[in-house]
């Protein structure tokens, strides 16, 4: 029997949400992300920590200890790590323990989980560097594979990642791009020297991430036997399966009570019983496989929604306006050399803010509504624009301060 590998990749992120910020707050207070009655970043973090981060890391550590052939990759945003430092040293320790096993790789991305790649290359590179430094500082490792926010990927990103020295990039294995080709191979991209592509097998990933506890799904309940039978049914030639999902799948999107942890603890050891089966990290997957072909992503593809594009973030004019005005401040913010201004400006770049303004309710909107802390996308927009106005005032005040100094 031929070799079969699984590259399991989980994405860990929390944004700093903007608490309700009215026109009357502009110039009065600048603690946009401070907790209040309606929005509490700390409360969300602790809730998800108890439901997801801590039990999932316990499960993963257990699997790493008992299964020598188990490995995985994580992308952990800088904003998440800051929240760990503030509200969850226990959570941070549990991630550090995972990485210390040597079989958990950390993937590169922007520190702020931003869409900076599409607005400012300079700022984007700065955030990737900030993330790299944070990872080195907290985990003592240097990422070698790149993923962009929401797996937003195109040929331009491939060229950038290649030039920046990354071995590989992770992208959605979307049918419209792949055509007849399978995501279960390693690919390369046009115009790159050595960059390889790992493409998400969205069917097998989403069976776990989205459908696991959906009782309306024909395959419900998903058992380990059933899942392994699907893995085994894949052509022997297709030797790499990339399972990519949000980390919060475990315990937050799919609840413990519905058996998500038991399911993982069952199918992974069982599947690993076969000598030819193993898990690999992203870098191992890239080093271990030659590219089967070159895949060209002419347009930006993400792992989100049925459209697999950026429409959940940039689909309506509120989102476009909000980000336009935010990035217009770049030059002034950077020239200010004011640490707090730069920090707040960057925190506002976290893509979740734009996501909360999404209005395409009817197809994917239920997912969005679940994640939004606000009454409506219009409120999200108003608070965000008001925060931008306050940033402007602070810039003016800063400039006055400089002059008088």
């Amino acid at each position, binding site marked *: 029997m031929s070799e079969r590998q699984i590259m399991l990749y989980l994405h860990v992120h929390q944004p700093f949400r903007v608490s309700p910020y009215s*026109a009357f707050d*502009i110039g009065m207070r600048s603690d946009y992300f401070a907790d209040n009655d309606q929005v509490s970043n700390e409360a969300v973090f602790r809730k998800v920590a108890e439901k997801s981060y801590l039990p999932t890391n316990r499960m993963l550590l257990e699997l790493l200890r008992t299964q020598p052939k188990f490995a995985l990759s994580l992308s952990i945003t800088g904003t998440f790590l800051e929240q760990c430092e503030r509200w969850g040293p226990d959570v941070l320790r549990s991630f550090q323990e995972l990485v210390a096993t040597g079989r958990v790789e950390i993937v590169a991305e922007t520190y702020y989980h931003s869409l900076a790649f599409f607005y400012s290359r300079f700022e984007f590179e700065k955030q990737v560097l900030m993330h790299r430094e944070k990872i080195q500082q907290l985990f003592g490792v240097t990422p070698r594979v790149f993923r962009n926010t929401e797996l937003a990927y195109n040929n331009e990103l491939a060229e950038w990642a290649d030039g920046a020295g990354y071995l590989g990039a992770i992208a959605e294995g979307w049918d419209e791009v792949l055509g007849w080709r399978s995501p279960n191979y390693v690919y390369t991209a046009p115009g790159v020297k050595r960059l390889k592509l790992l493409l998400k097998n969205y069917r097998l990933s989403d069976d776990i991430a989205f459908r696991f506890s959906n009782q309306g799904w024909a395959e419900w309940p998903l058992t380990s036997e059933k899942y392994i039978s699907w893995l085994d049914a894949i052509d022997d030639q297709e030797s790499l399966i990339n399972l990519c999902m949000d980390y919060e799948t475990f315990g937050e999107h799919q609840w413990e009570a519905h058996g998500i942890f038991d399911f993982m603890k069952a199918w992974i050891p069982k599947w690993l019983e076969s000598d030819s089966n193993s898990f690999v990290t992203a870098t191992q997957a890239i080093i271990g496989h030659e590219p089967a072909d070159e895949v060209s992503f002419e347009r930006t593809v993400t792992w989100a929604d049925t459209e697999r594009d950026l429409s959940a973030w940039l689909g309506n*004019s509120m989102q476009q306006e909000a980000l336009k005005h935010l990035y217009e401040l770049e030059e002034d913010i950077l020239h200010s050399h004011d640490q707090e201004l730069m920090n707040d400006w960057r925190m506002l770049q976290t893509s979740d803010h734009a996501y909360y303004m999404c209005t395409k309710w009817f197809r994917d909107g239920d997912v969005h509504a679940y994640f939004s802390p606000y009454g409506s996308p*219009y409120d999200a927009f108003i608070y965000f624009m008001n925060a931008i106005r306050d940033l402007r*005032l602070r810039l003016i005040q800063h400039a006055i301060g400089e002059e008088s100094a």
Partner: protein
Amino acid sequence: MLGWELPPYNSGGLGVACYHLAKALAEHGADIQFVLPSTADHDDVEFMRVLKPRGTTKRTVYTSNPNPYTGDLTTIRELQAEYEDFVEKLIAIERPDVVHAHDWLTLRAGMRAKAVSGVPLIAHVHATEFDRAGGDYGDPLIHEIEEHGLLMADHVVAVSNATKQLITKRYNIPSDKIEVIHNSAELLDSHTTDISAYRYIERLKHEDYTVVATIGRLTRQKGLTHFLRAAAQAHSRYSRFLFVIAGSGEQRDELIELSADLGIADAVIFTGFVRGQALRDIYNLADVFVMSSVSEPFGLTALEAAQHRTALSITNQSGVREVLNGTLTYDYWDENRLADQLVALALSEPLRDQLAHDAGLEVMQLSWKKVAAQFVDRYSVLRRVQA
């Protein structure tokens, strides 16, 4: 006097007008029982007795009344039924000289009072359902109440000639039964600006931005989509504009999205509902006040803006233009014209000053005292006829 709301538990101009009218009437010596449908507290009102049903039904107790403009009609009708019973009992205990009913909300109670007691009924029309519908037909049930109530009333008072014409035309009420008594504006107590509430706007004014404000419910009647389109046009010709939209209402989300669609979201500030100092500050900060209503029987906010020496641009469809000549006017649909006016106002301080000056003088001629005097005369006539 039958009313639906009083400040500070008001959702619009109706409550404000009722309050000042009643106060001025009391100063003329009128003894007023003001009936409200809710449990909202108005203990601080000393010039009249504010009465309200005890709330015997199991219904929710409101801190303020259901918004007469956006509230659920079933809830409003329930409340009205209770209100009518209460008014009937009240009339039996203490027979007034006149029943003065404000708008459709209290008209049925007014009719019942007249029917059981024979007391003359004045129907005071601040707005009809045709106005509220903003060009649509509106609710047929409300039309029926309005038509019936205006027919039954001994006398009808409209807040503008435009409203009088509308009542004559749409409800076939004989015009000699309808008297026009324009509203006034109470001099707002403070003319000082507490800039802290609007630091951003204040700051942009220092940078020579022109602040254009509009205040009102965010609803179709107010013509705000036309306003925003005109604003976008003006903004494309002159970038230093800041538009402030104060108020809340069911059209809010649509307007926010439209401002983004038009690419002027950054130049439009939505403050939400404001009152008190925050409201006065908007008038103080505004260089230009726009009343963009599709159909506005009167338009108290325009008078308040004029008091604050703000240049005004108002639609020809707003009744307030009958008392204010020192304004620029346009038809609510004429976005090009409003855009021209806005740019002209932004570019010419003398024009703004002249308009502000003229309208300011006109508004000083108005007073609730004069308004109340007209009502007192009318009450006397009705009482004589009765006797």
